[in-house]
């Protein structure tokens, strides 16, 4: 009995953790305090293009 309860709680926690990690990956907000999402979708500036532009101008 006790095993079952503990297992259920454990599985629930693991499920929640995986879900929150998955969400974070899929839809990173501006800054979540978790650096792993920085610069993914919140970054809209194409730096490579700008760099190329500048170089051409010089």
């Amino acid at each position, binding site marked *: 009995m006790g*095993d079952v309860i*503990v297992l259920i709680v454990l599985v629930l926690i693991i499920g929640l953790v995986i879900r*929150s990690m998955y969400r974070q990956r899929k839809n990173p907000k501006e800054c*979540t305090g978790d*650096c792993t999402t920085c610069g993914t979708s919140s*970054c809209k*500036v194409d730096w490579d293009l700008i*760099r190329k532009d500048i170089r051409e*101008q010089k």
Partner: protein
Amino acid sequence: MEIKIALAGNPNSGKTTLFNNLTGSRQRVGNWPGVTVEKKEGSLKGTNDVTIQDLPGIYSLSPYSLEEVVSRNYLVNEKPDAILNIVDGTNIERNLYLTTQLLELQIPVVVAVNMIDLVERNGDMIDLNRLAQELGCPVMAISALKGKGTKEVAAKAVEVAKKHQVALIPDIYDKTVVSALSKIQSELQTHIDDSMARWYSVKVFERDERIDEFLKLTDDKKSKIELLIKKVEEALDDDAESIITSQRYDYIGTIVQHAVKKKGSKHELSVSDKIDKIVTNRILALPIFILVMYVVYTIAMGGTSISIGTIGTDWANDVLFGDIVPNFFDGILTSLHVNGVLYGLIMDGIVGGVGAVLGFVPQILVLFLLLSIMEDVGYMSRVAFIMDRIFRRFGLSGKSFIPMLVATGCGVPGIMASRTIEQDRDRKMTIMTTGFIPCGAKMPIIGLFAGAVFGGSSLVATSAFVIGIAAVIISGIILKKFKSFAGEPAPFVMELPAYHLPSAGNVLRATWERGWSFIKRAGTVILLSSIILWFLQGFGFTNGQFGMVEDNNTSLLADIGNAIALIFAPLGWVGDMAWKATVATFTGLIAKEEVVNTFGVLYNFSEVSEEGNEIWTLIAQDFTPIAAYSFMIFNLLCAPCFAAMGAIRREMNNTKWTLAAIGYMCLFAYVSALIVYQLVGLAIGEVAFNFWTIVALALLIGVIYLLFRPGYKPKSEALDLKGMQTAK
């Protein structure tokens, strides 16, 4: 109607501070220029149709740097409804240069004179009405930091946006230029919309190539315009761009003369200047920096009575995760009569593993708090300045140091901050070396070994930071001699902001941001891997039968670990610790604090941790000091975590370079750890002379050769130098 307001201003003028104040968001504020490298959006508090844009700091709208291009493209192409121009009140002259350019865009502008608190404290006077009159746009004083006047200035910006109230074109240029500009304007008429006429004609006058491309003028018109420009150039005996620049400065000079009264004469040294005389002194600067870092690490991670961080961590390890938490779970699990395996998983795996990581939170918070204070006070910008002087000698620009400062929190934004470096070679090199700086997640590794093996020595902790910086400098020198990296460093202009008292809000926010991400990872990634690790180390073959093992040294994980550990044997990873250290190194790729988590799980097995610091004692038994140090060096310098590797890939945008960067880091880490283990070990009599001693010696000679060989010199620049010498 939706209204877009852009915050534009010089670097470090307080745009982001105002942005946070107006939108209630928490963007990173830093007391050095270049903190915001891409535009950020938020909506004005209390409204839902007003969007505020935070732009990177710029000195002018001429595209000299990447940040300037980002901001200029936004302003010219996307035309916000109003520009809120933040002007640093303590440095009005220089800040107004951008203002005059913004006014020419003929987008409604409101000028916010920021840092008015400092202006008042200095006893300076700024006549806002006079300024408004001269500039022809509303001017208001604010203190973004104290939140004074910010609401009013935002309301004013919304008002001018709604009325589309553009400023009168300021009377900047003299007659000759103005008449030329209006002639150019009439040539351009069919190409542009009227409101931007002045801006475009000035740009065409300056011969801005980008604008040329954009306007697609006919050759006939082009030659007409060129004739006009030539005439002015001849009349004023200067080139067009300089004419515009110098007339702008003259104009600003008169405005400032009328509207600003500085107290005290200019020759008097301010307090900031006096402090700078000492801390940026050519000889003293570096020792002072190392001393400051030593004090910081002593307070955060040392073993003295002022080491608040360590006191907190000791409590967390001994009491919280050594007593309270285990007893709590033990109580529940025992009363539920749980199965032994499940009990082990939860107590040894999860509580042991996650607890081992969380125990370091106090040390990390204290460290981040101190670093944030140093940054906010303004000392870190001095460090960048000092580093520029050192880096420059080796052909690296000080601009490379800003990413490294950011990386003390987390390597990912650090690597991303390298974007603003223009030259590809310098940027690549910065990306390759930024990972050497110990980030927050590496702190537990340092804390664990400094505490368990070295008796809480602050020297060991500080040395971790010094090794990081040394790795950057050594790599810089070595790499710069290769053809792909050779070349003069880019100029690095950075003014030093005046020192000021740290603001509690900024400091606490920065500390919490960094600390919270650490705690969050402990509750997610670390928790999951604790569970997986616990299973992996619990099973193996005993007498040919697969099943649970009594001693995790005989588990399958141990067998695999031991096999791979052969690679690391020359670094002194031998005996029972070998497989554990190897597994920890590999799990460390997920996130660096996994190293500590892994030890937490692996050393908890079949040990009932009666006394809190059981793991520490076991680690102290397993690791000789020199092996511990070699392990620490390797893990601080080797390939960073997957997130950082991802950032490297994104920034390099090239598989070969990504692999080269990661490969270089691993190689550098291995060679450093080998040299330290074999040669220092031999010197202190811990390691006997063996085959690897010779290898280490050869590698050391190799490194010294790479450091001092002449290296590749690009031809054109070598010629330039010669030319300059003969010219003298």
